[in-house]
């Protein structure tokens, strides 16, 4: 798998460029070294054969002196130089497939013959065989000249061969250098272009990123994600940027939603406030009325005032969103007692409560009283006969059921439909919404995911049944 990272791309580009350049230089270098070797070989060969020739000459002259005058110093030189010459000759006489090498080999053999002839002549001299060594010296001189001639020819031919080789090599080398220069220039150009391409593949996405950043700083988050096909690092930055943008967008929408909820909550508090009366004044006044009724022995009035005080105590003191069911029930009872005194003949209240569950459940505060109040106010308009309001409180398997029903005139279906629309996220909630709608909206607010938290079943002229079902296992949405 090819690594697409900027690092690896730059590494490969750089390495390949360097390798190609190095190989080009290496090739030139190798050929330069070879050129030097050609020259060195030639000079070494030349020097070697010059020294061979000099040494032979150094034998030839003392030999002549020795033969003429029996000179011991000449003999000494002769022997020394013969030994030297013998030492200079290679013992290896391999036949190489080269004319030059063959000629060298021939010279070695001729020098062997020359040294052997020298020794014979010296022995003949010692034996005073004048004719023999005289003839021998004559033949040796011919051999000496022949060897010298051979060495000259070898040097000349070697020089010519090397010259041809050198010229061919120079021609090749110049061509090579020219192509190397072109090649290196091209490698540099290609590397530059590749680098430019890489930089472009980085700078272009970065420009896009900066543009997008400006848009985001202006608060515009709904732009599409960046689609970038660049090196891995930039791709990762783009991906990270997209994630960040989407995260911020989501976060901001969450904040907005929470703001909305806060507004709704404040509105709800306002509703509650509106639903309350001036607490202290009323409370003191009612207490005064209660004491007055007791002083005057007005029992009925005293009972009425007591219920009213109890109701107000519950309404005014309870600041929590959720209250124990028992408290809600107590408040409801006080309210119903008041209503019983107010409407002793026209209204009948029937409370069916399972006392054993009152301490097991909690419910939103001020839930039942507004429902009863709404029923009393609206259900029996233009209603003849005794109105009955039935309140049922029951709970089973963590499910609390609160039912308020009446035998009043009923609610038209379109009104029910309008009432059961959630206004939780709407900013413009009518501040005067009271009673039933207040209860409905608070239910929707606390349990936004439970669409059937509240049901209204009504029939024209036959009554209305309002059912609130609270699942105690579902946490109400009251974290705000």
């Amino acid at each position: 798998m090819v690594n697409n990272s900027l690092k690896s791309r730059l590494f490969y580009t750089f390495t390949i460029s360097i390798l190609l350049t190095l190989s080009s230089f290496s090739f030139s270098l190798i050929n330069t070294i070879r050129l030097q070797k050609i020259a060195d070989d030639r000079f070494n060969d030349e020097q070697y054969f010059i020294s061979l020739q000099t040494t032979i000459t150094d034998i030839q002259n003392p030999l002549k002196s020795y033969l003429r005058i029996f000179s011991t110093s000449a003999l000494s030189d002769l022997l020394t130089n013969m030994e030297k010459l013998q030492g200079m000759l290679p013992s290896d006489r391999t036949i190489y497939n080269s004319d030059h090498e063959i000629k060298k080999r021939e010279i070695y053999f001729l020098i062997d013959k020359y040294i052997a002839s020298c020794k014979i002549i010296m022995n003949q001299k010692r034996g005073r065989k004048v004719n023999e060594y005289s003839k021998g010296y004559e033949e040796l001189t011919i051999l000496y000249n022949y060897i010298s001639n051979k060495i000259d020819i070898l040097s000349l031919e070697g020089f010519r061969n090397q010259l041809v080789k050198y010229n061919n090599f120079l021609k090749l080398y110049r061509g090579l250098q020219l192509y190397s220069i072109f090649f290196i220039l091209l490698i540099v150009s290609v590397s530059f272009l590749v680098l430019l391409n890489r930089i472009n593949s980085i700078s272009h996405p970065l420009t896009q990123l900066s543009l997008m950043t400006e848009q985001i700083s202006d608060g515009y988050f709904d732009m599409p994600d960046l689609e970038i096909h660049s090196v891995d690092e930039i791709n990762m930055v783009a991906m990270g940027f997209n994630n960040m943008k989407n995260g911020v967008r989501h976060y901001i929408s969450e904040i907005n939603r929470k703001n909305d909820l806060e507004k709704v909550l404040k509105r709800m508090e306002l509703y509650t406030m509106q639903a309350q009366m001036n607490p202290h004044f009323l409370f003191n006044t009612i207490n005064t009325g209660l004491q007055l009724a007791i002083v005057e022995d007005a029992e009925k009035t005293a009972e009425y005032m007591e219920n009213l005080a109890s109701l107000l105590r519950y309404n005014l003191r309870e600041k929590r969103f959720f209250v124990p069911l028992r408290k809600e029930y107590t408040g409801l009872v006080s309210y119903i007692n008041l209503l019983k005194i107010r409407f002793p003949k026209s209204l009948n209240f029937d409370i069916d409560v399972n006392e054993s569950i009152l301490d097991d459940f909690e419910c939103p505060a001020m839930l039942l009283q507004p429902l009863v109040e709404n029923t009393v106010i609206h259900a029996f308009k233009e209603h003849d006969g005794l109105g009955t309001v039935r309140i049922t409180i029951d709970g089973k398997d963590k499910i609390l059921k609160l039912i308020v029903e009446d035998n009043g005139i009923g609610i038209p279906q379109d009104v029910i439909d309008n009432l059961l629309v959630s206004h939780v996220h709407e900013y413009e909630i009518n501040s005067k919404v009271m009673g039933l709608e207040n209860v409905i909206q608070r239910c929707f607010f606390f349990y936004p995911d439970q669409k059937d938290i509240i049901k209204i079943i009504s029939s024209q002229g036959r009554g209305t049944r309002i059912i609130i079902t609270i699942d105690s296992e579902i946490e109400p949405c009251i974290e705000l």
Partner: protein
Amino acid sequence: MNRKKSLGNILKSIPFVFSFITIAILIFLINILLSSTDFLKEESVSNIVRKSYYAFFIPTSDQAFFNGLKKGAMAAEEDFDCYVSFYSIDNNIMDLNMVPFLGINGIALYPLGKSSEIKDQIKFLEEYGIPVIQIENEVLRDKNTFYVGTNNFESGRAIGEISKRTEKDLLNIQIIYSEKNPGLLSNKSIVELGLKSSLGDKINKLDYTITSLNPLDAERIVYEIVKNSPEVDLIVLTDPNDSLVAVQAIIDSNMVGEIQIISFGDSDEILNYMDKGVILGSIVRNPYEIGYNAVKSLYEIENTGFTSSYLDTGIKTLW
């Protein structure tokens, strides 16, 4: 907009163009690299080791013949694991004298010059145990000498076979031998024997003259024949160079058709003259075979002590 787009396309194609040029130059470089291996090859050739070293002593004249001979000898180098060098014997017998001291394992000699001197030379080499192959000219025959070349009797017969193409019943033949081809010159009796065996009674007159090593000598001789021997109707040349010179002399003497010519060799000029009918036919030796078999014989002598003492490499007749 379109202009910007086309500019963009050009810019995009630049890397491809550069890549193409780079590859082209790379190919050139590789080409140079490969050609530079010739140097290495030269070096490696000099590093090949051979078992034996043989020398050929041949004249520098008759380039075509001796070039063919050299090719044959060099082809045998590989087959018989030896190195062959070529010495000239035109005016210098010093090299031949030095053969025993040059580390040479055997020589092939084309005897040229005075046969007595050459015989002495061969004997001198025999004393040093140097095997000698005589090429084309057998000047010495003993148990230690060997011959590789053309059978002169067969050469005479081949001349006779070509001569039969003339319409004349009786032939007056003039053979021009040459010191440049001593093989035929020294065995002219055998050549003539072969000629007679082929032509029999058709020979009315058979005479010979000899050209020296001078390349223009044949011209003079032809003019003399035209002038002094009008009865001659067939001239036989025994050297390629003499053949061309003689043909030119016949043309210049306006005797084409009157005097027929049998030449020696198969150079382009000779073949051209044959096409034009100036030359009746030509005798061609087989130099490649001679060179190759000379090396082979030297190899056999060195390695087994034996080889054929007489090896006929055959001739070819062209007409």
